């Protein structure tokens, strides 16, 4: 999505852009996200991502190459030569450019790595991404097991983030905001529902985030619990899922039934970045994402490739990258 935003900015400055996309459709993960408006806009900016995508799709200055995987990036004189493979036809071709913007994004954390949370084993344990898709495509949250409307929902934060046991000693920055906003959507659609929000620290995301947080705190059916749940399991023949956690408030081990459990998964570096971009001189930073400080000679990064970002900051980063590209091209000519 950051690549698209960057392409949109560049075309407005009169630059011809080739957009290389390995998937059949453009838009990245943001194309799967849902609008998180309740009775008012909650500033999730998914519509902005949609709008950027439409703008690029309809633009004459952008050559769209979907299903094309970059195989090699090579410096060629003052510009770059990219070897790309058409994944459908299996043929390779060459793309030339004066500058390259790397916007290969992130990989969502694979929640099955956290076996104790039962993702993949229980149908009613979803990831944040699953819930985004469900709300975007179906319009409301349902239990995948029986299609019923869930009444008691738990959100577990920091699944795959801030977790040294899996080597992710970083915060994914977007999860608190997206989980709170989706929880508000569920609350507004089903006033009888109850949300239990298990977190470590609430991470603010951008301006006016306080409004969202305050609205959740004032909601009597919204419970903030500072705890990391340790286990999710089925309890004999009873409906729902049992979740176990040590809660600081009471100091006891609590076990509660839930209809639906949402794991707010974080972001991982995209494994495809390794190897491919090292040739171009890009190196990973301390968190495993591409270090933007190593960008040079006409290679730039935009979006989550250089570290987790929400939609707002991805677009800002894309605009910053566009400015850097223009500055670089100006210096070349």
């Amino acid at each position, binding site marked *: 999505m950051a690549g698209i935003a960057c392409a949109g*900015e560049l075309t*407005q*400055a*009169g630059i011809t852009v080739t957009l290389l996309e390995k998937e059949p459709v453009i838009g990245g993960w943001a194309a799967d996200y849902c609008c998180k408006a309740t009775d008012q806009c909650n*500033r999730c*900016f998914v519509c*902005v991502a949609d*709008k*950027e995508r439409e703008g690029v799709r309809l633009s004459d200055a952008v050559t769209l190459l979907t299903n094309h995987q970059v195989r090699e990036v090579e410096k060629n004189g003052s510009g770059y030569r990219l070897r790309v493979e058409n994944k459908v036809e299996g043929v390779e071709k060459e793309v030339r450019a004066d500058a390259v913007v790397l916007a290969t994004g992130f990989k969502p954390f694979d929640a099955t790595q956290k076996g104790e949370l039962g993702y993949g084993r229980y149908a009613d344990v979803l990831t944040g991404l699953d819930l985004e898709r469900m709300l975007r495509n179906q319009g409301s949250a349902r239990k995948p097991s029986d299609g019923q409307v869930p009444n008691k929902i738990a959100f577990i934060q920091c699944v795959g983030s*801030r977790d040294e046991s899996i080597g992710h*000693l*970083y*915060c994914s*920055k977007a999860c*608190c905001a997206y989980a709170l906003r989706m929880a508000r959507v569920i609350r507004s659609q089903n006033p009888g529902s109850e949300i239990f929000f298990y977190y*470590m*620290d*609430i*991470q*603010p*995301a*951008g*301006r*006016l*985030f*306080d409004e969202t*947080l305050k609205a959740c705190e004032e909601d009597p059916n919204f419970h903030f619990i*500072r705890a990391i749940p340790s286990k999710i399991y089925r309890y004999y023949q009873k409906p729902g899922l049992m979740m176990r956690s040590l809660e*600081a*408030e*009471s*100091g*006891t081990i609590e076990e509660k039934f839930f209809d639906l459990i949402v794991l707010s998964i974080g972001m991982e570096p995209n494994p495809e970045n390794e190897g491919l971009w090292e040739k171009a001189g890009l190196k990973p*930073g*301390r*968190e495993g994402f591409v270090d933007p*400080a190593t960008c040079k000679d006409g290679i730039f990064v935009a979006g989550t490739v250089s*570290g987790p970002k929400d*939609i*707002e*900051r991805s*677009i*800002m*980063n*894309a*605009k*910053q990258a*566009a*400015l*850097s590209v*223009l*500055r670089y091209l*100006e*210096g070349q000519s």
Partner: protein
Amino acid sequence: MSGQQAVLRIPAGTSELKEVSIQPSVIVAGDHPAGLLMAEHLADLGVAVTLMVPFPTLEEVVAPYRVIASADESVAGLLQEVAERVSQHAGITRVTQADLVDISGWWGDFSVQARIGEDLKTFHTSGIAMAYRGNPVDLPGIPVQEGVLPFTDFLSGINLQTGALAGKAESPKQVVFLLDAGERDEKWASVAAIRVGVFLKRKFGTQVFILCRELKVSVDEMEQDYRAARESGIIVFKYRQTPRVEKGSGGLRVVFEDAAAISSHGPSEITLDALDVVVAQERLGLSEDRAEVLRKLRIPLEDGVAGPNNPQFTGRTPKKGVVVAGDAWFPEYPTDAAMTALSAAQELYKWVGKGTYQVDAYRVAEVDPSKCATCLTCFRICPHDSIRVERYGERNVYITQGAKEGATWEAARVKIETCDGCGLCASECPAKAIQLIYYPDMEVLDFLAKNL
């Protein structure tokens, strides 16, 4: 431009794209280092940049951030030589000891008044960027007393060689960073506290306590730095209610309830006593003069931040051609502020960089002067400040401002370059004199018939 008999016919039912010529020039004003970065980038792109700083030298813009730069390499990389580079840049006109006091006119043709020392001077420019630093407004919930410092005063007052604070000879033995008492969506202070805390601990052996409501780690590499802080002996507490800061035995005393303690184990009140310095996160806001400039431009201010919150329009304000950055946009940690500022610079470059600008002529409002009752409703509500009342000759003939001859009546006029096509004026006009120009249905049908 004024005073001449220039007559311009407004084409009826305009639907083609119009090109307007714009001088590629920008004024960057302010005391935030983000302004230096914006000036440098825009000047490299061939825009004529006038940089206005309220200090005698550019170095003073960066100086308060030196302690953060010593504690954080990425900030150092950003700010290390920027003042030097900008002060030698051939494409930048530097105006020192200057503060922007008034802005009038339109995008593409702004007239800017600046106070330089004692004098007032007028500049002309196409676009304006305001990168201001925030001033401490208050310390929410913490009584003002000796030894309690606002965070920004602490950062700008500390001596990097000795660790001593302004007016003191030695570095303090302990520092308590008291965070989150006010705004909860700002994270600059949490990040700075951890990184500067590690720096103080390692360099001067200062005992550092950090008291916060939530530990904010949503900045690049922050979780690792938090780990490093704990390993170097910095103690972090999370409190429930805003801690009490009072006079204790031999210094200040801070009392609070530990939120991480298990409450069934009994009361969890913690007291830190005999403290030298308590650094509290303040609420930041713009100074009254600067807020007044923004208010005059009809840029709304909320908690000291300006403009709409939409990444499509980063730093963009309702006044087209004016962008804000630094703490005036939102108080952010320097690396984050740089990203925001540069994306705002990109917005500005998109408008003024090419020398021409294409106006979506079919998405602008148009006033029918014959119906206009000069009630000034549109003038008052226009969020883009695009409507003025002008004198008209005959119908659909507009005479530029100042021309007296041939003027028969007054009516509102929309400046098409700055109009956003939002339609507010059209919906509010009591005389129904304003219309948004769209493609009529027939044109759409024609287009479909030709193309399908």
